[in-house]
């Protein structure tokens, strides 16, 4: 069965972890509007960070609040390597990452050009801006050490072999 492929909210890794830290400082729960006001963010900008963290299973949004989940708490309490490991584990669950892993594994050298990835993204998610999606995909993929991109060689590749079957439900031990 084909995975459900959701777009990635256009935001960066540092902002995602920054939001988790901020929530933890507030006792794990905060009102979305209050956060946007206090941070000086446009609401849409903050929502992208919240959606990204929710997609990765680090928080949830009951009512108008943002609630830090145990996985998010574990990520911010861990060192850099644990943060990266948890991020990677969560990325492996996302349809878009799984699809592109399959796509690259089927290719010779398990790599593609930027243009080929943009075409694939446009085909998969025609409503999204493929350039922006590529940027986010690469930022998250590099942090999770799943995808790499060599701009000199124009080569987007699987950073290491990772099984495209279902990730273990319990996540990392």
């Amino acid at each position: 069965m084909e995975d459900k492929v959701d777009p990635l909210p256009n935001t960066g890794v540092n902002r995602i972890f920054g939001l988790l830290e901020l929530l933890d400082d507030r006792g794990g729960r905060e009102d979305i509007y209050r956060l946007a006001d206090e941070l000086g963010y446009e609401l849409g900008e903050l929502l992208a960070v919240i959606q990204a963290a929710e997609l990765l299973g680090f928080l949830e949004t009951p009512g108008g609040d943002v609630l830090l989940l145990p996985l998010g708490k574990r990520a911010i309490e861990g060192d850099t390597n644990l943060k990266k490991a948890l991020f990677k584990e969560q990325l492996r669950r996302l349809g878009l990452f799984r699809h592109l892993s399959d796509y690259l594994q089927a290719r010779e050298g398990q790599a593609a050009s930027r243009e080929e990835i943009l075409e694939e993204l446009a085909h998969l998610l025609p409503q999204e801006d493929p350039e922006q999606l590529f940027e986010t995909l690469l930022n998250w993929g590099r942090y999770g050490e799943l995808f790499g991109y060599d701009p000199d060689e124009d080569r987007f590749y699987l950073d290491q072999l990772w099984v495209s079957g279902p990730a273990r439900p319990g996540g990392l031990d």
Partner: protein
Amino acid sequence: MALLELERVSKEFGPLAALEEVSLAVEEEEFVAIVGPSGCGKSTLLRIMAGLIPPTSGRVLLEGRALNGVNYETALVFQSFALLPWLTVQANVELGLEARGLRPEERRRKAAFYIDKVGLEGYEEAYPRELSGGMKQRVGLARALAVEPKILLMDEPFSSLDALTAISLRELVLDLWADPQVPVAACVMVTHLIDEAVELADRVVVLSARPGRILKEVRVELPRPRDKRLEAFNGYIDRIFSLMA
């Protein structure tokens, strides 16, 4: 003996007095923050510590010996990242090592170690144009740490970053500070944000408006990680703010 000591340091730029009789000792295992109003000479003070500019009068002592010229026991992290856009992340981090004469293999090994420490493994071949501000500052940190300075100097390292990214980078700096594999003995950070100084530093040095003089030094006696909801945390902020006001 202090790791780094300023003795009655003054600095004038032509008719402009930037610093006046600043005496300050930085001890081993100490994280010092320097706060003060805009234009009070905070960044000038940091550059004098790095030996990039000489004081007009007074002395800088490194482990008891007078400093003449560049202080090779320090490395600077800049507000504006100061990365070379035509070099990859790996090459930017190796840059300071090349200047210190390390062999290519050793440069690669050290750069890889600190790239890993700042969470940039996977970004080695990226160029600065591909990176967000937060990731650029991670490169800036890795480049500074790679030369294994005794004293890490940071000049408003988070002030070019948006609020959430700055939170994330402050946590990274605290992780690195606590990491026994990172051999930095002391850290001096210039900031205009009092809460940032109280969150990170063991001691906050408060400078006056230009010419910068030391008004007071406040020791922050709170265990890390510091809970910003505590009354004591806000007490330090109020105290420092009242000194600056």
